[in-house]
């Protein structure tokens, strides 16, 4: 579970968070939506232990992300908005590095490459990957540690519609396994019926909760292309079967 209470943060003299309070429960996909500059990414960075809040408190499964940062980080996986990797290392090397860093068995790396469709480029240096492939490598890293809390900052931006759909299926499956999934996005409408909760962030606070089955198109619209690709998508059942096989590794 993720809990943030009265988070504040200033960049210089500019306040970005002004007492933000939220909760994200296990078994649910919680969306944090809002316009640019609303404070979504800053909230995620605070929760990931990357920046210190000016005030307030944030916990992951009860562990304070400031005072008990490393133990809190053990429980979470974070996917930044534009993940960057060592340009000279290959996809497989990057995954192995993070697997070793987190004490994860290295054999999971191949399954993650398979899941994210990167097996064929496993030996390609990350500097030669497209933006979408880098995002998929980031997704592979996100799932690698099998952490109980997943934080994703604008995860679909570089992905094509088919992979955005697949990402949603993957995250739904992880939520069904009891994980806490918190996602920031401004492609709100794409998550209609996928997310369990949707929090509208504005001016550094949570303004209100939106109905997750009737999400607006206010923060960007690429749903038309998403629906056009529906026929090419692997069915949710096939994605789920693939994921179940990985869980057993």
């Amino acid at each position, binding site marked *: 579970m993720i809990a943030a209470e009265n988070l504040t943060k200033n960049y210089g003299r500019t306040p970005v968070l002004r007492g933000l309070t939220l909760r994200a429960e296990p078994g649910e996909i919680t969306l944090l939506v809002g316009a640019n500059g609303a404070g979504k990414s800053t909230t995620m*960075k605070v929760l*990931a*232990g*990357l*920046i*210190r809040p000016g005030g307030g408190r944030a916990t992951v499964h009860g562990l304070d992300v*400031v*005072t*008990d*940062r*490393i*133990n809190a*980080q*053990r429980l*979470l*996986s*974070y996917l*930044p908005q534009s*993940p*960057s*990797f*060592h340009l*000279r*290392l290959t996809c497989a*090397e990057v995954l192995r*590095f*993070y697997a*070793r*860093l*987190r*004490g994860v068995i290295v054999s999971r790396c191949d399954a993650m490459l398979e899941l994210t469709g990167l097996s064929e480029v496993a030996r390609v240096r990350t500097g030669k990957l497209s933006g979408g492939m880098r995002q998929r490598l*980031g997704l592979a*890293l996100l799932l690698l540690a099998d952490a109980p809390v997943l934080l994703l900052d604008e995860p679909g931006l570089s992905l094509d519609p088919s992979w955005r759909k697949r990402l949603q299926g993957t995250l739904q499956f992880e939520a069904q396994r009891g994980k806490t999934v918190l996602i920031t996005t401004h492609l709100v409408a794409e998550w209609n019926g996928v997310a369990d909760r949707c929090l509208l962030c504005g001016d550094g606070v949570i303004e209100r909760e939106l109905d997750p089955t009737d999400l607006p198109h206010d923060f960007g619209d690429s749903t038309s292309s998403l629906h056009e690709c529906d026929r090419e998508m692997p069915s949710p059942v096939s994605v789920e079967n693939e994921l179940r096989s990985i869980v057993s590794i």
Partner: protein
Amino acid sequence: MNFALSSPFETHALHALLAREFRAALINRYFHVFCALALIGGATAVLFSEDTNATGFFILQIALYFVSLFALLTGVSSAQGEREEWPLLFAQPVGRGAFVIGKFCALFLIFGGVLLLLFLPALVTGSAATMLLRLYFQTLLLAAAFVSCGLVAGFLANDRSQALIIGVSAWLFLLFGVDLMALFAARWPLLQSVPDLWVAALMLNPLDAFRIEALFALQQIPAEAANKTPLAAWWIDHAALWFSAIAVMWTLALIAFSAFRLERWEE
């Protein structure tokens, strides 16, 4: 944020960081160039020197100007090389000090290997193996201090250009600036009345400490030439020990500062 030095020594994390640094160094073209230059420098020292002492003196010059600069640039490059990856790296449950220690240990071991190339021709052909081995270990300590200096510059700066400016400025200051300042300061009545202050300033500079130790060890300067003050006399008597101590102190202080700086970093 807690200053977490509790976890840098997690073996799996250090193992991962060491393996990654080694891999990155193996495919780094600058390291290939450095290896080639080290070998050429070592061979040139043997070819163009009349005896073992002259060879040692030649290698000393390479160490002073070339190894120290390359070690610094390597530290800068290593610290800045993955700067864009920091958000992903620092979201992992590993103390940030581990990244500094992992990088330093890997670069130290790599330099240990590469410097063998510099000393190998002299060791193979020369007879004063003990003197050359002593110079090898001291060159390695000097490299360690400048790798740490490069890491600090790399972690302090916001981009690679800024890091290079900071790093190279520090190198120029230690190589020439301290001596020039000491030269000008020698005119002051205070320093003339307490010359040990002047000596102490030189002693604290790892490049001067290395230069003095190596020159006396190679018998390029007669000991009595600098035996003018009690502190200078002590320094000359304990030059090797002092250089080792000052190099280790600089290295530890710079690594600790790098870890502190990284711990405070925010995106």
